[in-house]
């Protein structure tokens, strides 16, 4: 029973971390129809910037805020000087489907290598801002700590806040319109280029939050070659696809579903099945619903 409850906690907290990344991916997808593989690199860079701020100001929370600002700046920069040029040049043909993937992969490599050049390939570490020791209830320690509470809250908060932003505000309407039909949005007077850049900026900030929160929740280590960030990208993307790519709630649901299924398979079946489980879960979900849990029924080809 205790193990069962703990497994649920493990699933939810790890799911929350995948969700944070999934949210960032969904944001870029929703505002520009690009699957942003550079998101891992942008998050890594933002987290390094956050680490520098921690060294300077000795406050995780201030550093988190500044890292998110930096992440937003990085996102905006990537879009305005990079993706905009790309879209001007590749609008049509088979390349239009792969160019954004290739370009963002290239960017991921560029950020990695530049970071490696700048800071070297060894680790630095970020301490948890609040206790990461599990809560104890009647003598049992749960796999759930104040830090994990912060992470889950952050994922839920971002989901709610950004969902409101998207569905209830004028900015959100501009974002959605620009993503679905840039031409019509333009004709309606939406400054599509700026709106897209804004979408990237918000995603950059969300990605920075994911990086800053996941690092201390793991071992705390940070390096340009960090395995954790590549895996965060892969699992975040899988979560986003499971959730349906169009919806922030879907991103969180996808993340939590992935987290729970992984936790239960690893605990009750075999610890070796991590990657296979992720693949099988994705296939099952997509066979039942090709557009993800909360996807649009008449999904656009993109």
């Amino acid at each position, binding site marked *: 029973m*205790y*193990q069962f409850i*703990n*497994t649920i906690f*493990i*699933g939810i*907290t*790890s*799911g929350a*971390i*995948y969700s944070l990344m999934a949210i960032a991916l969904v944001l870029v997808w929703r505002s520009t129809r690009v699957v942003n593989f550079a998101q891992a690199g942008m998050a890594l860079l933002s987290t390094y910037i956050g680490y520098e701020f921690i060294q300077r100001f000795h406050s995780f929370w201030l550093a988190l805020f500044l890292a998110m600002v930096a992440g937003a700046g990085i996102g905006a920069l990537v879009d305005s000087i990079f993706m905009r040029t790309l879209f001007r040049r590749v609008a049509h043909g088979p390349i239009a489907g792969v160019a954004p993937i290739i370009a963002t992969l290239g960017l991921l490599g560029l950020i990695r290598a530049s970071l*490696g050049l700048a800071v070297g*390939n*060894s*680790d630095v*570490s*970020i*301490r948890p801002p609040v206790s*990461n*020791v*599990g809560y*104890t209830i009647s003598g049992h*320690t*749960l*796999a759930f*700590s104040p830090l994990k509470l912060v992470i889950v809250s952050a994922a839920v908060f971002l989901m709610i806040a950004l969902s409101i932003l998207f569905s209830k505000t004028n900015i959100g309407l501009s974002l959605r319109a620009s993503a679905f039909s840039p031409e019509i949005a333009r004709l309606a007077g939406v400054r599509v280029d700026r709106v897209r850049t804004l979408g990237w900026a918000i995603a950059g900030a969300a990605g920075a939050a994911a990086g800053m929160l*996941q690092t*201390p*929740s*793991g*071992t*705390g*280590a*940070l*390096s340009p*070659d*960090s*395995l*954790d960030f*590549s*895996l*965060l990208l892969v*699992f975040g993307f899988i979560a986003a696809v499971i959730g349906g790519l169009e919806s922030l709630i879907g991103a969180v649901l996808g993340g939590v579903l992935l*987290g729970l299924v*992984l*936790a239960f398979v*690893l*605990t009750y079946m*075999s*610890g*070796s*099945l*991590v*990657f296979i489980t992720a693949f099988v879960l994705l296939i099952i979900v997509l066979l039942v619903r090709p557009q993800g849990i909360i996807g649009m029924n008449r999904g656009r080809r993109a």
Partner: protein
Amino acid sequence: MFGFNRGKLLVATAVLATGGLTLSAVPAQAFSPHLEVGVSSTEIKLGVTLPMTGTASPGYNKVPGAMKAYFDYVNANGGVNGRKITLVVKDDQYVPTLAVAKTNELILKDKVFALLAPLGTANNKAVAAAVNPGRRGIPVLFVNTGYSGFANKKVYPTTFTMLPSYIVEAKIMAQYLKENYPDKKIGLLYQDDDFGDDALAGFKQAGLNFAIKVPYASGSQGVSGVPATWIGKLSAAGAEVVVLFGVSSATGAALGTAAVMKYAPKWVLGSVGGDATTIKALGVPAGVLYNATGASFLPATTDTTDEYIKLFQDINTTYNKSAVFDNNVLVGMNTAFVTVQALMAAGANPTRKSLIAAIERKGASFASAGLTPLNFSATSHVGFAGYWFGTYGPTGDLKPNGGAYTVYTTDSAGGAVVKSTYKRPAMPAKGLPN
């Protein structure tokens, strides 16, 4: 779409021509007839492939720097019979395809004399099969893996191992556990591939039973939530002693997560993932390691009373930009130290054959920081085959249990685990073999 107009033929020809140019633009390397490949009157060239970048690189990418540092120290003190040693480092990103390609470059383009300390089981196996240094007579010195298969002289005739095999380690560890924790429930975390399979074989041979065995997929330790499931299973099974037989990142993740879940069994760390510096660099607080048991075949990295450690630390400061002196650096330096002795033993004008013969003949008497003997002989290419156990102090220093190094040795086959009587000889003056 595929009409062959003239333009396309032109382009195709141009591409072919460029390809041809690139392919043929290799200067034919001139070499004197009486000197072996990779040996000139002033230089001996060695080569290493290992992950310098990528997710497998942390820790291991410090080894070449350490080896270079020791070679530079030797070079500054007259070199090997007047020749300087250079080490060509290639990044294989832990991918066998790249390991083969880079090893080919080392042999065919850089023309190295011997391969040194290549890393990784799959990589070494692919290189052995595709590049076949064995058939070409190219020495592969001191592979940096504990997979027991490479000690098979028939399959890998020019390969020498340095690390004790995982089987040896597991057998000795089993003995230690049976002696010290006879009635405790013991749990095991292991990597679910050949690394773990070797360990399981060793534990099984020694007749040790685990209350619970938790496998993990290589790489999955970086996935959020995965380490928590290990700890969940270990604690649910009530394991009081837990053996962590994985890589550093897995050990670190297990220890860190256990602290979060307030699970505090007696930890016993395998040597691969047991380097305190690496674990601490992963962000795990030193306190978590406190009182855990660790194993090594080299002196503790912080033991400055040891003459080798003291010398290597000095060399590290002078020639390695004061890199953090951890087990990777120590292993690198010690490997380089043994390599220099092998080169010296191979004669005034070493050949690949004479190098292999020298190690087979004199290898067992080579000086080294190791606390167990090197077992090289005409019939054995196995290096170290023993371990001592220690306890991590509050700052993460591994100190031998009982104050002195008590070393156990065994072999990868059915041999018994015995207490070693080996007395390490004194270090050659200034750590320079002669």
